[in-house]
């Protein structure tokens, strides 16, 4: 699971993909997940970290995280490699 190397997330949650010219916005939780992926963390690590910070049950968090990763793939921002 890898975020493409030329993709950067700004502090305000703005993402630009130079390969396609598309831009995106993410909310703070989305931005944190992307930065955890860049650090090489697994989905389990990520949800573990987030549960320290947010008031949320593990099932919902896992479901929402998987859904978010699906969208990143869909937008060609995330690769499985």
């Amino acid at each position, binding site marked *: 699971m890898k975020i493409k190397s030329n993709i950067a997330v700004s502090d305000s949650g703005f993402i630009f993909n130079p390969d396609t010219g598309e831009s995106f916005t993410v909310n703070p939780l989305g931005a944190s997940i992307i930065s955890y992926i860049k650090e090489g963390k697994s989905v389990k690590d990520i949800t573990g970290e987030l549960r320290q910070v*947010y008031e949320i049950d593990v099932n919902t968090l896992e479901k929402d995280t998987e859904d978010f990763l699906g969208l990143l793939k869909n937008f060609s921002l995330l690769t499985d490699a």
Partner: protein
Amino acid sequence: MEKQRYERPLIKRMENDMPNKFGMKPENFPKSKIDGVKVSDLIAEHGSPLFVISESTIRNTYRKAKKAFATRYPKVQFAWSYKTNYLDAVCSIYHQEGSWAEVVSGFEYQKAINNGVNGKRIIFNGPDKTEADLEMAIKNGSLIHIDHLDELYTIINLTEKIEQKPRVAIRVNMDTGIYPMWDRFGFNYENGQAWDALNKIMASGKMELMGLHCHIGTFMLSAKAYGVAATKLSDLALGIKAKYGHEIKYIDLGGGFPSKNTLKGSYLPGRDVNPGFDDFAEEISSALLKANFAPDSLPLLILETGRALIDDAGYLLGTVISNKRSSAGKRTTIIDVGVNILFTSYWYDHKVSPAQEFTQFSETTTLYGPLCMNIDVVRDNALLPLLNKGDHFVIHHVGAYNMTQWMQFITLRPKVVMIDPEGKVHVIRDSETMETFSRQESKPEHLKKFEL
């Protein structure tokens, strides 16, 4: 360390095309309280979903409407349209404010009587009045608005056996320049049916012709149409005065004013574009004042406004069941409010507000109800903050027609509570239970046993 409120992760592609209505700012602020009472407390106490009615909003809206007309025309009377919301508590607020009752069936008529309305203050509309209904209405001195000739003849026959003289009006349909024209109720103005019926009433000598009535449509976005209707009914009234020397006591223009809801497919929100009471009052009053009535014999103006008086006072509270994604990747949200209790979701893009704080992030989602039916869509493409499972929300402007046209379908109908001006919560209709149904049903003896 205290944990933060969770908001699920969100990513959105930024579109460069023209701004459209889905790209507009979310239509929302959190709605965490209704008349000072917390939504979370209401749901904890009374369950979800839950209809909530604001007594203060009913009274304020009524007074605003009354004022719009009374400041422009000297004789105005409202008659509460029972079919719009006939919960006894709701009707009684209107009666306390001075509204008569407008009913369209024997059932509604009986409800008005049970609410303590004087029979003389009941307007009886509708195409289906049974002989028994008519007999009761004649004896009580109610205002019977005749819909068709068969009804007229039934009333004439009834006068053979009833002493009281029926007090009647006719319902008139007409071209007011709007499409579609409602011509299935009453007698047509343009082709002479209305005159024909009036001549029959006057010639019979058996009835007291009190007024003229029309109801030209519902959720009417043209105030002008009411000016046309008022002019046409005035013309009939003046014609009767000229021909028979008989004075018509009232002109009843029915209901039909829009609430602040947004019609499906409308580009702009209803609260910004729908005409208000002042617009209608201006058109109607000037048409009546311009007609050639003698200053001391102006007819009473009756209004049977429904929707516009009650819609904004009704809220429907609910809870998020789940967030999903469609096969095409679209966000969808399942809520515990279905079209069976929110009939008006076929008409309107109802405004939906989360009941708790949220961030500026939002997402376009389709709100599905809980029914296991494809038609159960409460909002298509609503731009909403990110709702989590278990979050509460408030659907606005649901006071009209939902609590009368709701269906018991798949689930039981929920409670209705009313918040009084002191902030006290009253249950005005209890939720249905299994007993509600076992009381209505019966099972033949031979079906009582089986083995599986």
